[in-house]
């Protein structure tokens, strides 16, 4: 049984064969969903994930699970693919059986709504890739969006308990993100977390500037006038920001700060609360249907290309995110990103060129505020991108627009940084946007730390292939900071020095195993729970993460609303490892018994029989 129906598959192959010049293309395309069996009766599943070069943790979790699945008689194959391809296959094409990956970082537990609500199963993006349909959960998810405080926490706890019992995914661990910074006299970084919008905007020139020769030396700039002290060099291990700067392109977004430095929203989360950013001020009122926000923009805002930013761009952005074809195609093609935010919005109207009124579906301001954090897009650029895209990279039968597939390496945002230059796969250079409102005399006190915007000549991101290469670059002075989180096992050999300062912060981007519930036997919660019991989260935390992670059972494991019954307690509280917890060694007979109890049978050779 496959995750995608045969009819879709045939038309997909035809499409590909036509798109590719090579006639045999159709026969060659690999398929990750391998619910088909070689001999027709025993079960075989595939686990999609990224290779060790991209993320050593994911592949090791996948390897661990695949070996245990083989031990209980399930033929398992590992399908490694690039990060962009995995995002495409899982989030857009829904072509997978199991996958190992991380949730995107979340600001609000409302992210569970887009992750699990059944209305999103046929959509794409981080909206229910599992195909999980449960009306009880739907009601609870909708309800929490209208609640606040302890009432909301209670609903969230109920949601967690229900979801963990159903196991549309198995949470593995909450990782620590480790980054290293090089101490430089010419840069005063302040207190913010490394590699965030706040830290780049609040970094200031230190005492010695012109004479600082300890700054990073980039041989590519040997012809450049500016001194090394003028630039901040960041080293990353994920090359996607050098290939695609489209805020709407799901496969290429990493959750880092680059898009948010290029594109400004109406409001930003700063120090735990939402502050007006492009908005000068806002007024909230309560109606029967929900809250209403009256938002006034700052004066004389412009885009990077000099065009004025007006209320029309705000209404355009929300309309566009809801349908990137703007009604030109037969069906709506919403942006797959920012769905959580845009689905909260009922209507946006421009009252005058600098004022908009936004009505929401929720009556809870804290939830509605999420919609004010979407990046604003210039209408004059994106109206050109409403036509249907036939790029074969998209593949499949999904209708998609140019807006979702264009690489946008000439981004026109209104953010404090603008695009300067880049080399795909190697380097991205941003420069300060001189007309940004942060450069003005009068900015609100809450944004004081960012006064002047970005104070250096350029912010450059350099791609290297591994954590070790990143640290090497830092040590030889070729970079100031590691942007991507580093491999904890590679870090164990690294010790902090006067010059190199590590930072570690708990991430809520939980590692997990995702299941595709669209085909048997993964549509059976008992089967999924039996699979979950093959994962020794304690062992993986120490072996794979070198103890720089916390094992977890709930998707809200790092959030204040974590249900008490789901707290980690020497073992998984709901799906304990079917073996010696912490050793990784499976009690094979016991594990097989779990599958038998769930109603599955074995052949005489000990292979699990696929359900019909």
């Amino acid at each position: 049984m496959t995750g995608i129906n045969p009819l879709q598959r045939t038309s997909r192959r035809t499409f590909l064969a036509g798109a590719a010049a090579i006639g045999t293309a159709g026969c060659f395309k690999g398929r990750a969903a391998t619910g088909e069996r070689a001999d027709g009766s025993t079960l075989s599943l595939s686990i999609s994930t990224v290779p060790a070069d991209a993320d050593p943790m994911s592949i090791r979790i996948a390897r661990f699970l695949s070996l245990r699945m083989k031990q209980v008689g399930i033929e398992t194959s590992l399908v490694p693919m690039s990060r962009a391809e995995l995002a495409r296959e899982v989030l857009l094409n829904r072509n997978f059986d199991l996958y190992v990956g991380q949730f995107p970082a979340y600001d609000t537990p409302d992210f569970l709504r887009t992750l699990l609500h059944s209305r999103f199963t046929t959509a794409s993006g981080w909206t229910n890739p599992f195909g999980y349909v449960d009306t009880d959960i739907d009601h609870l998810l909708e309800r929490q969006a209208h609640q606040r405080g302890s009432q909301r926490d209670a609903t969230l706890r109920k949601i967690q308990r229900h979801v963990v019992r159903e196991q549309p995914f198995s949470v593995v661990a909450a990782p620590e993100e480790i980054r290293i910074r090089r101490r430089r006299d010419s840069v005063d970084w302040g207190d913010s977390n490394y590699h965030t919008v706040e830290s780049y905007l609040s970094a200031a020139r230190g005492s010695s500037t012109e004479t600082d020769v300890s700054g990073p030396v980039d041989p590519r700039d040997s012809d450049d006038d500016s001194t090394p002290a003028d630039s901040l060099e960041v080293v990353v291990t994920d090359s996607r920001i050098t290939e695609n700067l489209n805020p709407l392109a799901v496969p290429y977004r990493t959750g880092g700060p680059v898009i948010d430095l290029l594109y400004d929203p109406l409001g930003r989360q700063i120090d735990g609360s939402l502050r007006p950013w492009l908005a000068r001020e806002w007024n909230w009122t309560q109606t029967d249907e929900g809250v209403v926000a009256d938002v006034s923009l700052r004066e004389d805002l412009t885009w990077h290309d000099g065009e004025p930013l007006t209320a029309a761009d705000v209404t355009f952005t929300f309309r566009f995110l809801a349908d990137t074809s703007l009604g030109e195609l037969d069906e709506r093609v919403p942006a797959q990103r920012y769905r959580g935010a845009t689905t909260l919005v009922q209507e946006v109207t421009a009252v005058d060129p600098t004022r908009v009124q936004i009505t929401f579906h929720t009556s809870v301001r804290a939830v509605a505020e999420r919609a004010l954090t979407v990046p604003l897009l210039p209408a004059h650029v994106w109206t050109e991108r409403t036509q249907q895209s036939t790029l074969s990279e998209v593949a499949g039968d999904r209708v998609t627009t140019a807006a979702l597939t264009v690489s946008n390496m000439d981004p026109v945002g209104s953010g404090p940084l603008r695009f300067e230059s880049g080399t795909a796969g190697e380097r991205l250079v941003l420069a300060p946007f001189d007309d940004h409102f942060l450069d003005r005399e009068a900015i609100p006190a809450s944004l004081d730390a960012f006064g002047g915007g970005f104070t250096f000549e350029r912010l450059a991101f350099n791609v290297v292939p591994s954590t070790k290469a990143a640290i090497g670059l830092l040590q030889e002075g070729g970079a100031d900071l590691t942007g991507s989180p580093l491999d904890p096992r590679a870090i164990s050999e690294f010790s902090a020095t006067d010059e190199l300062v590590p930072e570690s912060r708990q991430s809520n981007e939980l590692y997990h195993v995702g299941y595709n519930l669209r085909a048997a036997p993964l549509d059976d919660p008992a089967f999924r729970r039996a699979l979950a019991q093959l994962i020794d989260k304690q062992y993986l935390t120490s072996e794979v993460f070198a103890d720089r992670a916390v094992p977890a059972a709930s998707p809200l494991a790092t959030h204040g609303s974590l249900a008490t019954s789901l707290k980690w307690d020497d073992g998984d509280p709901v799906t304990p490892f079917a073996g010696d917890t912490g050793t990784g060694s499976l009690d094979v007979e016991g594990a097989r018994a779990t599958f038998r109890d769930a109603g599955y049978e074995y052949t005489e050779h000990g292979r699990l029989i696929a359900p019909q």
Partner: protein
Amino acid sequence: MNAQLEVAVRVGLGSVALLTLWTILFLDWERLRTLAENPWNRIRPHARYLGLLAGVLVVNKFARDFGPAVSWVIGWNISGLIHSLEGSVVGTIQSVDVPFLTPFFAFIYLSGYVALLVFPFVAYLALEDPRPLREAALAYAITYTVGVICYVLFISYGPRNLIPDLVAPRLYAAYPSTQQFTGEVNSNTNVFPSLHTSLSVAVGALAWRTRETYPGWAVASTVTAFCVVLATMYLGIHWATDVVAGVVLGLGSVAVAARLVDRKHEASVEPGSE
């Protein structure tokens, strides 16, 4: 980047050292002097063959830039298949964990390989008989062409990427700066077939064909090629399957090149003049 340049220089110096050694050991001073006096005289008759090889290399570079994107759309991801075919062969090879082997195989994989590929051109340009050089140029061209086609048709990650729990990335763990350098030459999704193997085997086969002229080189190239092949697996970069495919490709391309050059030669030379 600084580090990359440094790697390139080191690899280059190592190759030059090896090339110098082999030149001193195996090449004839007389022939070298004749070659040095008027190199273009020697190169010109082979212009078409060398031009073909150059063209293939250019297309190769172009295909390597755009290949991966096409590969993801039409390619067949065979990484898991290869692993299921061969199991833990590379893991077993890696179980011989003698410390000096990593720097040795790293040198062989980088400098040794470059020298191995370049030397035949020096050695055969020094000969009167045009055939060995033409065979070499053609064999390389065929190998690269088949290699590139496979790279587009298949997505294949190596053992260090698929089974990092069993296979250690010995080259990149010991010398992290070499990863960006090799990344410029080939993508980590293109381990099948092993071009290191196919070209090294091709050089060895070509050397065996000229063993009467260069007996020492026949031995040295075989030993070096064997070490390169071992290095690809010891360093965790290739599967044994990639190596087998590389051997077939290397031998096959020499066989085809020899046949083509023979036919051309017979057509343009009196019979019996061999």
